[in-house]
């Protein structure tokens, strides 16, 4: 697997560390309640097919990336700066 970092270009997967499903992009508010936080911290869609992951470009530009990836084929269809998605939501 290779990931195309929007800032650094096409890079080996070893430069990146994996955070998990991109749930952090939709973090509950502090007063959302225990159930919402439990769901956010622990429960996962865990899809077999298209998914959205968060990767950290540890060995490169230190950017957090949202990666659209297929968990069956390992194909990567899009890579976006997390800050860009987070910024657009505001």
């Amino acid at each position, binding site marked *: *697997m290779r990931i195309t970092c929007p800032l650094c270009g096409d890079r*080996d*997967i*070893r430069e990146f*560390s*994996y*955070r*998990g*499903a991109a749930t952090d992009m939709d973090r509950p508010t502090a007063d959302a309640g*225990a*159930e919402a936080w*439990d*769901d956010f*911290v*622990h*429960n*996962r*869609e*865990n*899809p*077999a097919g298209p*998914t959205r*992951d968060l990767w950290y470009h540890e060995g490169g530009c230190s950017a957090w990336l949202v990666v659209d990836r297929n*968990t*069956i*084929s*390992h194909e990567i269809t899009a890579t976006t700066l997390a800050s860009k998605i987070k910024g657009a939501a505001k």
Partner: protein
Amino acid sequence: MRYSALKVLTQGLTGNKGWTPHWRDPEPKDEYDIVIIGGGGHGLSAAYYLAKNHGLTNIAVLEKGYIGGGNVGRNTTIVRANYFLPGNSEFYSHSLKLWEGLEADLNYNVMHSQRGLINLFHSDGQRDAFARRGNAMINQGDDAVLLDREGVRKHLPYLDFDNVRFPVYGGLLHPRGGSARHDAVAWGYARGADTRGVDLLQNCEVTGIDSKNGKVTGVQTTRGVIRAQKVAIVTAGRSGQVAAMAGMRLPVESHVLQAFVTEGLKPCIDHVVSFGMGHFYISQSDKGGLVFGGDLDFYASYAQRGNLPMKEHVMEAAMTLMPMIGKARVLRSWGGIMDMTPDGSPIIDKTHIDGLFIDCGWCYGGFKAVPASGYAYAHLIATGQPHETADKFRLDRFRTGHGLMDEEGTGSQHNLH
């Protein structure tokens, strides 16, 4: 189908034409008392113990592929009871005892071989941690021997004891640890369940779980609708998809774990050797292949194959630990899909739907748990109460924070196990 020396002899002399299948290939009935989703090791052993311990036989095991074709055929066959935490400790201890009686119980040769497992350590701090773990194992009633460097050398003379980064300080020997033949375990439990009347339905994929007024009523499958009083999910890496059919989101993320086998060699590795600092473990199969593996690829995957960086990492760890392995040639590699929980420990519990049960979250340790998981799951399904060896495997422990079993001590979070 039963075997005897006489039968092998007479079949050998008459062209081996009299062997019959191990189990029936029945048509699905419209209704069963219990439907088990997943014909892997855990599902088959659950069916077996439901029949044997609880006298329940109106059961179907639904397998989307073929018996032995899932994770039970894609692992590295290690059997051990060297857990530390209450909850895990008594469960795996029970499982090892079941393993020790399994061949007699099933009348089937699962090639269970208690060749001893050695966990290596490489620092004073690690020695203390292993001494503590060994004491916990002995307190649980299992066996552990703390070996110093020379003690390890007697067992494993081929290691690089003076490796600059990871000099061998010693090891924790678990004499009753070892391995077994994975396919035979599936076949033995399948035959045992089938002869007691359980229907094993292969090529039967579940596509929906039906419930009414909060009570489960049956399943939709590729071979038609099957009604059931109770439905038991036990689908390992695919738990998320099956649970979603019942409207559940699980604390599970599925990851790929790779393993490797070399060409057949003469006996050279007599134990199971675990090199935790290098994320590497190895044993030698009875066919002679060196079977070894490492850590997860560390990204969610259902691909049943991994990427090259982890292969390289595992090979480097192998060369670090035992340079002689450089002479061996890798025959093939494969990946299994692991249902990873945040704390690295499993779940055997009821669900929010009456009559629907779930057994999942075995992470990368499901094989050794096959007997005790099925045993405990059968008890839960039959009686509605958790078995005493598995009553800590609660689904709600993540929500409440009570009873988390983080064996590695790295934190209860998805990307840490």
